[in-house]
């Protein structure tokens, strides 16, 4: 099992940076795209047709990046991720799909982005609240603004994960949130909320964006709902994958404790009365042009 040791590796993949994490991220990425209503559901037709180049920061196995390249054949889509394994996997998927407008490269989002100023029409960052340390967000957002052209868009999608009537699921979130506090991933000073939704709009504004707007979406993972199975995968599978994180962050003492929680979670998420909704927020803003600055 991979160690969770971000201060050494500067790799904050909570779920272990493994093959199972890649498959998991591809599946959950597709589910989120569907739940949100598309790849860029909040952007106007005008913005979508004007796109020529797009950057996806922390692209992971490239689910959104590849789907963008497929949906917009005239757009050059670039994905960057810290993990060589993720980038190899994404590149092989691109090759298999015969996509020549998608470009992947290894790079750490904590460093300056390896692109010149004003290179992209849109820079995207989706669900990185669990991997980018809180302290690095302002600088990363500034970098995204730098590489976007004036009038271009910086877009952040963050999750508050979920609210439910399941004790095991609420407990899992409590433990995860405690871990986030300990390793410097939390955006709010409490162990009840991930908090990214409360701050991502302010981050965009503080990085210099104008016309910052927000759009929420939900994924209903209650029993009998369309995303029930996705939710089960999302939480039951990821609970197994977060073991190194839980143990190294000290929020759990033993594998046995985790196993018990996992069994309880499987039972409760299959219960006929299980109810839960995942909340997602998309925030986006424009890099000012000379006119919008005035």
């Amino acid at each position, binding site marked *: 099992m991979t160690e969770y040791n971000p201060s050494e590796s500067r790799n904050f993949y909570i779920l272990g940076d493994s093959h199972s994490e890649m498959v998991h991220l591809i599946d959950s990425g597709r589910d989120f795209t569907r739940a949100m209503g598309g790849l860029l559901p909040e952007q106007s037709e005008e913005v979508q047709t004007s796109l020529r180049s797009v950057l996806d920061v922390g692209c992971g196995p490239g689910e959104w990046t590849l789907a963008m390249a497929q949906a917009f054949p005239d757009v050059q889509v670039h994905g960057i991720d810290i993990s060589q394994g993720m980038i190899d996997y994404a590149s092989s998927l691109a090759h298999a799909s015969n996509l020549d407008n998608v470009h992947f490269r290894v790079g750490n989002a904590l460093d300056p982005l390896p692109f010149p100023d004003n290179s992209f029409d849109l820079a995207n960052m989706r669900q990185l609240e669990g991997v980018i340390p809180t302290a690095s967000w302002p600088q990363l957002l500034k970098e995204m603004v730098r590489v976007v052209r004036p009038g271009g868009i910086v877009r952040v999608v963050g999750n*508050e994960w979920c609210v439910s009537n399941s004790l095991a699921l609420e407990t899992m*979130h409590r433990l995860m949130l405690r871990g986030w506090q300990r390793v410097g991933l939390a955006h709010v*000073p409490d162990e009840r909320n991930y908090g990214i939704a409360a701050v991502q*709009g302010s981050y965009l504004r503080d990085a210099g964006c104008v016309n910052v707007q*927000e759009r929420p979406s939900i994924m209903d993972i209650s029993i009998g709902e369309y995303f029930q199975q996705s939710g089960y995968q999302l939480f039951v599978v990821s609970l197994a994958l977060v073991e190194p994180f839980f143990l190294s962050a000290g929020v759990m003492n033993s594998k046995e404790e985790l196993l018990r929680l996992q069994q309880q979670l499987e039972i409760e998420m299959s219960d006929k009365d299980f109810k*839960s909704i995942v909340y997602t*927020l998309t925030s986006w803003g424009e890099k000012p042009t000379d006119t919008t600055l005035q």
Partner: protein
Amino acid sequence: MASYDDIQQSSNAASVIPQDGEIPRLFHFDLPRLKQTHQVFPELTSISAITNVLDVASGAGEWAISAAQASPELHIIGIERDPRLVEQARAQAEEQGVKNVTFQVMEPFAQLSLDADSFDLVNARYLVGLLPAEAWPQALQEFLRVTRSGGILRLTETDLPIANTPAFAQWCDLVSQAFLRSGLSFSPEGRLFSITPMLKPFLRQVGCQQIQQVASTCNFSAGWPAHEEVVRDLTRTYQLLQPFLVKSTGKSPQEIEQLYQQTCSEMLSAKFSATAFSLTVYGKKA
């Protein structure tokens, strides 16, 4: 920006102290958008079939008056248990010259003295805390009784706002724990209210059809358009919540007051960043 004293003063002027630790309606996260867009039911593609609207637990008329202003073709009736709030609502409507809204004193979570099938839409917003968790199905059944066939029952709730400051977070934690202990919460352990995932199943349970869910968000960070209004609302409603928190948490009035003051001053700091998700769930009566 309004100073803390301004907000305190205007909130004191507008408040009615609840009796015996009674809980006020805490949230109005739908109002900034309503006032900005003048769309009363933004999730509905057509509102041409909607004229008669019931607003349940209408309080001081906050939503009903704004909605009546935004859509003059609607006729809105607000029902509210507290006669002092009904007086306030009437005075407010009068003062603003809004004619298409009326208010009645009525217990909203009992049998309603209203005819069956009489409303095109029944609106119930941010009720969490106002009635015991187990009383929801029966209350909704009664709301549906006064809805006409083909009419809409519409619920809007939040699981709690989220902010980046410590006293605000601690206050929310206290509220959530107090709601849990008082049987008002749907959470198994009190992290959040867990009310929003219950709304669709509730509507299904009482027999609604074509149930839809739509999320909305209210960013009330410092410098955002909704900041001043939401901070004013929370400053007022959190003040009114103090007796309930004293009664249900075992903390002293001084401790609660101090946390309240810290929460209020945090909300006015330039670094304050906050949002609230709300979920609107609506369905048709068969």
